[in-house]
């Protein structure tokens, strides 16, 4: 676990995932070993179908590996029952998706409250919105917000429970560079102020520059790990 002052958040060993659809088998993960430190920003890069999302879903407890082991702070996730996995997500994980997945019938604040309603030590919903610069838009419905604003609501919703881990699947994929940077800044702020571990999938190689480490995926495996001695600010990223 902790070694040399660095605490391990996730540790995975030979993770495999096979999807069987009809008569074809798709090997989404072909033996992934993994060690993610607490408080790290890790970017997952790689072509479509290389296994990034599958890994993120398994880490987030949305899916289970076909084989292999994955532990979170020493707790083996593959052994958890469905309800325990839900509880694990509830307590530890914040998700951010490419298409925001806000509830259209709830205002920005209420979308955040969805999470603060059930979290143990959440921050105030408005405070979370202020953290992403949307304090003024709290009473707006998703349909009244721009894409970037919606994604920042999603970020606020994810960080409001002060999660140990933020899992972001192409959070800027549908955004232009200016709004994309604002979303990344919000993520970075959570990482710095709350000590949240951030795992971020992207197709945008430039984003890798803000990460502590970049995992390069290819054909269901981590092909290469890139250590970043001096991560840059999101605003400096070349889009």
């Amino acid at each position, binding site marked *: 676990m902790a070694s040399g002052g660095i605490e391990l958040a996730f540790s995975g060993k030979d993770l495999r995932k096979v999807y069987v659809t009809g008569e074809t088998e798709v090997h989404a993960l072909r033996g992934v070993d993994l060690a993610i430190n607490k408080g790290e920003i890790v970017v997952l890069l790689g072509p479509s179908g290389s296994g990034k999302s599958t890994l993120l*879903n398994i880490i*987030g407890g*949305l*899916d289970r590996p076909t084989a292999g082991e994955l532990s979170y702070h020493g707790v083996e996730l593959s052994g958890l029952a*469905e*309800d325990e996995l*839900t*509880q694990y*997500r*509830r*307590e530890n*994980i914040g*998700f951010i*998706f490419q*298409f925001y*997945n*806000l*509830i*259209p*019938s*709830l*205002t920005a604040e*209420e*979308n955040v*409250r*969805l*999470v603060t*309603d*059930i*979290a143990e030590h959440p921050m105030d919903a408005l405070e979370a919105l202020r953290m992403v610069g949307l304090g003024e838009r709290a009473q707006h*419905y*998703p*349909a009244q917000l721009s894409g970037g604003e919606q994604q920042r609501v999603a970020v606020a*919703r994810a960080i409001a429970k002060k999660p140990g881990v933020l899992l972001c699947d192409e959070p800027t994929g549908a955004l232009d560079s200016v709004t994309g940077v604002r979303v990344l800044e919000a993520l970075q702020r959570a990482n710095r102020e709350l000590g949240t571990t951030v795992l971020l999938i992207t197709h945008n190689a430039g984003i890798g520059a803000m990460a502590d480490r970049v995992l390069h995926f290819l054909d269901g495996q981590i092909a290469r790990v890139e250590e970043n001695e001096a991560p840059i600010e999101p605003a400096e990223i070349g889009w």
Partner: protein
Amino acid sequence: MKALDRKLLRDLWYMRGQAIAIALVLAAATATFVLSVGVHASLTDTRDAYYARNHFADVFASMTRAPRAIVARIGAIEGVQRAEGSIEQYATLDFPDSNVPVRALINSVDEYGHTQLNTVTLREGRMPQAGEAGEVVVDEAFATANELGPGDSVDALIYGSYQKLNIVGVGLAPNYIYSIAPGDLVPDNQRFGIFWMGRRALEAATDRTEAINSLALTLERGASEADVIREVDSILEPYGGTGAFGREDHLSHAFLDNELMQLDAMTRVIPPVFLLVSTFLVYIVLGRMIRTERTQIGLLKAFGYSGAQIGVHYLKFALAIAVLATILGSGAGIWMGQAMTRLYAEYYRFPFLYYHMSWTVFIGAALLSLGAAGLGAYAGMRSAVKLAPAVAMSPPPPPVYRAGAVERLGSLAGFSAIGHMIVRHIARWPGRSAITAFGVALSLGLLFSTMQFMDASRTMLDSYFFRAQKQDMTISFTEPRNADVLHALEQLPGVIRVEGTRGVAVKLSNGNRTERTALESAEADSILSARIDAGGGEIPLPISGIMLSRQLADQLDLSAGDDVFVEMLGGRRTQMMMPVASIVDEFVGARAYAAEATLERIARDAAPVGSALVSIDPAARDDILSGLKDMPVVLGVTERDAALIKFEEIVNDNIFTMMFFYIAFASAIAVGVVYNSARILFSERAHELATLRVLGYHRSEVAIVLLGELALLVIVAVPIGCVIGYWLAQMMTSMFSSDLFRLPFAPTRATFGFSILVILIAALATAALVALRVLRLDMVRVLKARD
């Protein structure tokens, strides 16, 4: 098969749950339609065939006594096709090992064992032979109930003397399809029978040589019944004629007519409710389907399919469900029709009663289902036809939510975020939410309005048997007696109280409205009989003037304070104007009442006792019945308890079958509506539900979003359903009322409660079934798709 039709089949298969749920509601419409129309047709056809084959008369008359020669005079009246005179005589039967009072109505047949009108169909044995004094044919129901058949004999007290009657046959006649003893409310085949006896034998037994007391006649086509009746009455007047009447006043015919009218009322109320709900269901399901298939529609149009082709494609979806429903419903309708026909065969005595279905009924049912489904599909079809391909292929605009009245209410109530999701979704789809609530409300209304008929019969039972009749026995006499007979009855050990009553046949007229009835009276200080108002209150007999039942007052268009022309039929034929003193809201029959003194003024005779009401010590019942057997003046004894038991038997015999059908049919609506709403809700919200799961909501918490919305709609539906039920029940009660009886409208809280419980269980069980899908929600797949 064309590709589009292949898509249709796959869509149907994919949406089979919803398609079947709609089909079940639509099938209920078809089934109830086929059932009521089919049974109505079967009963009508059977009756008409029976009437024709056995020459059921058109006009009937009875009189004290008339020479047989009068038949020729009647037959000569213009418009009369055939007339026949006969003797009808009540007799008391004596079964040696039982003192249960049994009565028979003996009809004469000619010396060849025949009658020209109302002919007897033999089921067993033969007709009485000429010159054989004691030979009788007995009606089948009585024979069955008392285990009698050819070769058996019974002792009868006819017109004051005992005679042994040998049963030579068992038969049926069209004028006794339904038979009931005078004064009884329900048929009792054990205690009342119809006999047929040779004319000469009956003439001898009743001292009516070459005389008759009953007449039946048929009319020529196009003849005026009213004119003939007037002629008949004037001829019979000197012979104590009590007024001729047509089929509509003939007891057996009227009861059957009443049944047909109820079937007709059922056809007009129940299938339309199901059709309405089906139309709504098709509307919401197809509407949702077209919204989800928007892109496909755009694509098809881009390929060159015309709007009409696409419209027809969706119409076919609805019609396919209707076809399935027609097949299911017709099958169920036939099955229930057969069961109902068998039930009728127990009440109504037909020599044959076939359940048969004509193709027109099926065609009618199919047209109704197709029409309802097509109508429901119309709005969806139109939107599919109008959708421009370019618009269709771009994603639909996001649903716009805003804080409306409902929302402000939600904020006030301090809803959680989940609470807001539920309330705002309802407000976002007001039409569909309204249909869901209205559908559940209709199912509750239908269940309540059918279940409350049990309350109605119980109220009628209570009013008729416990409040209006406090006597244990009603004793009828062979002819009106003077007060001595009451003293004689008082002498019987165990008799506690005796009261005399009488009924005088009268014709009441108001302008050109005329009704025949019996004007009934009770002793001034009567405690055994009462006239009970629908509200349960007792209405005293008026000191002067007459009291009419609501039914009769309505028929004559009279209200309290009006004058009515009273004409005594038979006897002294007194005629006078009398004031209508009061109206009593009774359930049974069109009746008229007057105080004893008033009736004496009309009848002006010395024999004021027509029958006696007796209260007894229950322990002495057997001895009293034996004592009554030895009193030749006693014609019959109606025991209240026996009638009550019989009535309850009839109600209880059918109660479970009826309840099963009521519950099944009403639940079909609730299940169909809730299932479809829940499935649509689930498909619409799958994305949101998956999001909640990802956010760390447990499955049970997520299910609340689904169940909460449905529960809210069902809760809203309950009071609406109660109002609809109340209204439907009122309507059906009035539709089911006839000249014979008026159903009380007396719904109880228990019936409301039971109906609500059944519908809540059906609705919530269905919703829970759909909510189980939350368990299988694939979070990853749902979230990958853009909503």
